[in-house]
């Protein structure tokens, strides 16, 4: 996908077309090719892309909307803004191909207000396409306040329809009733970049990397305790140890890692090197997923329980405040976990935490509560032995070690 090194700056339209040759026109044929390629969405859910496209194509009367989701609310992730800053034309090609394939007349580029460098690259790229007379549906930019949950599909649709970027409850799928009640395809920016190359080179080409069930390459954001943090394109068939070695390894012996971002899976140090990246093996062997492609490595001496609690507290504050189980459950969990993190639990705190994890899961309009408690449950299990220190009242030294970059202050607005 990448072509020349990412550090050469934002690729101009002229160079992009010289490098990749012109894109074909999209259409039903492309949905077949995407299906054969096995491409899955890179926004976090790893849902088969062709199935999403088929559903929108079936519902569309030629009036559908394609939303490029580039909002990237995940604090540890920077792959989408990096991609949009350096290879915007790949993403726009993919969106145009999607629009032609599902029957859409409009493309919405959904961006967070935070990322200035993305704004410049995107504005210039859109101007280039207009000047060159690229034949494609109009691409309109919709911006959201930088919130964790603003990138959730129904929140993006809500915002693109003129509302706040808060999730909505619906019995109907976005494919049938999305932006302005039109059939809508919400697709992560990176997924569309893969579409742009698969449409040109075919499904067999895409399958040269990755595994049978998770083919291709993917963008990872490597951060925390790594020598050269940044965004990397990696083979989905690789093991994490090989990926870390290729970028210079860890700075200090890792104390564990969080894979998949704030909704992700905690991995104990012993499992790091052999960690598979493909969806099936990750699920089978670790009950997790690559999520949005973040791999955050904990430094020596840092504590997974403390880091997990910081993240939980941030996520509790980032609730959109709409659903009782999320508002009350995450707040209660965060309070109890703060006590545990500081080794000052009240009697019954851990039992209540375990009960609330089960009680909250699946009960929001969106997956915010599920992701938050999933992350917590993973930490309690991966660091189960160390948890005893916190329960015993002995102060954990991990409190004094800088672990991950601290979560940002919660946002204030929803537009």
């Amino acid at each position, binding site marked *: 996908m990448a072509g020349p090194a990412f550090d050469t700056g934002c690729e101009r339209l002229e160079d992009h077309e010289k490098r990749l040759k012109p894109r074909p026109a999209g259409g039903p044929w492309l949905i077949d090719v995407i299906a054969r390629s096995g491409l899955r969405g890179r926004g976090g859910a790893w849902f088969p892309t062709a199935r999403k496209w088929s559903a929108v194509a079936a519902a569309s009367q030629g009036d559908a909307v394609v939303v490029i989701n580039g909002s990237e609310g995940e604090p540890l992730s920077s792959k989408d803004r990096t991609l949009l800053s350096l290879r915007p034309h790949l993403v726009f090609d993919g969106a145009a191909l999607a629009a032609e394939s599902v029957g859409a007349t409009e493309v919405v580029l959904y961006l967070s207000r935070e990322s200035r460098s993305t704004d410049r690259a995107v504005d210039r790229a859109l101007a280039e396409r207009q000047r060159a007379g690229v034949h494609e549906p109009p691409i309109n930019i919709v911006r959201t306040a930088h919130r964790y949950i603003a990138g959730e599909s129904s929140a993006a649709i809500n915002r693109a329809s003129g509302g706040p970027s808060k999730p909505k409850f619906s*019995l109907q799928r976005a494919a049938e009733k999305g932006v302005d009640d039109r059939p809508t395809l919400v697709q992560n920016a990176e997924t569309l970049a893969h579409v742009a190359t698969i449409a040109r080179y075919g499904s067999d080409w895409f399958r040269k990397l990755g595994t049978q069930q998770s083919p291709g390459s993917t963008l990872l954001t490597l951060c925390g305790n790594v020598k050269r943090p940044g965004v990397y394109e990696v083979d989905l068939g690789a093991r994490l140890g090989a990926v870390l070695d290729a970028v210079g390894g860890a700075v200090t012996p890792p104390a564990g890692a969080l894979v998949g971002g704030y909704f992700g899976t905690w991995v104990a140090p012993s499992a790091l090197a052999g960690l598979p990246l493909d969806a099936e093996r990750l699920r089978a062997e670790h009950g997790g997923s690559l999520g949005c492609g973040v791999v955050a490595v904990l430094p020596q001496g840092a504590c997974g329980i403390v880091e997990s609690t910081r993240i939980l507290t941030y996520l509790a504050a980032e609730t959109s405040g709409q*659903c*009782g189980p999320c508002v009350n459950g995450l707040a209660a969990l965060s309070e109890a976990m703060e006590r545990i993190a500081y080794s000052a639990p009240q009697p019954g705190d851990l039992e209540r935490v375990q009960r609330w994890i089960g009680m909250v899961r699946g*009960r*929001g*309009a969106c997956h915010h509560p599920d992701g938050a408690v999933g992350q917590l449950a993973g930490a309690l299990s991966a660091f189960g032995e160390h948890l005893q220190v916190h329960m015993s009242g002995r102060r954990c030294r991990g409190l004094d070690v800088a672990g991950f970059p601290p979560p940002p202050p919660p946002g204030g607005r929803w537009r």
Partner: protein
Amino acid sequence: MSEQVQRRLRVNPILCDGYGYCAEIVPERIGLDDWGFPIVSAELIGDDEVLGHARRAVGTCPRLALLVEDVPSRAIERA
């Protein structure tokens, strides 16, 4: 594969304010969490008496947050 429609209760958690009447009217399918918000079972409702209770709970909810959802059997097998 039959196209027979089955039913289950759903709550719109955004509308729900935790009045809790539903848990008293249809305890067969609804409990309350530690903060008074309903935990609604996704189990299909086969029993006519339970379905009657469910419909009464739907009509009683002050926030109109509860609904009986039709589930085509095809969708159940897929899920």
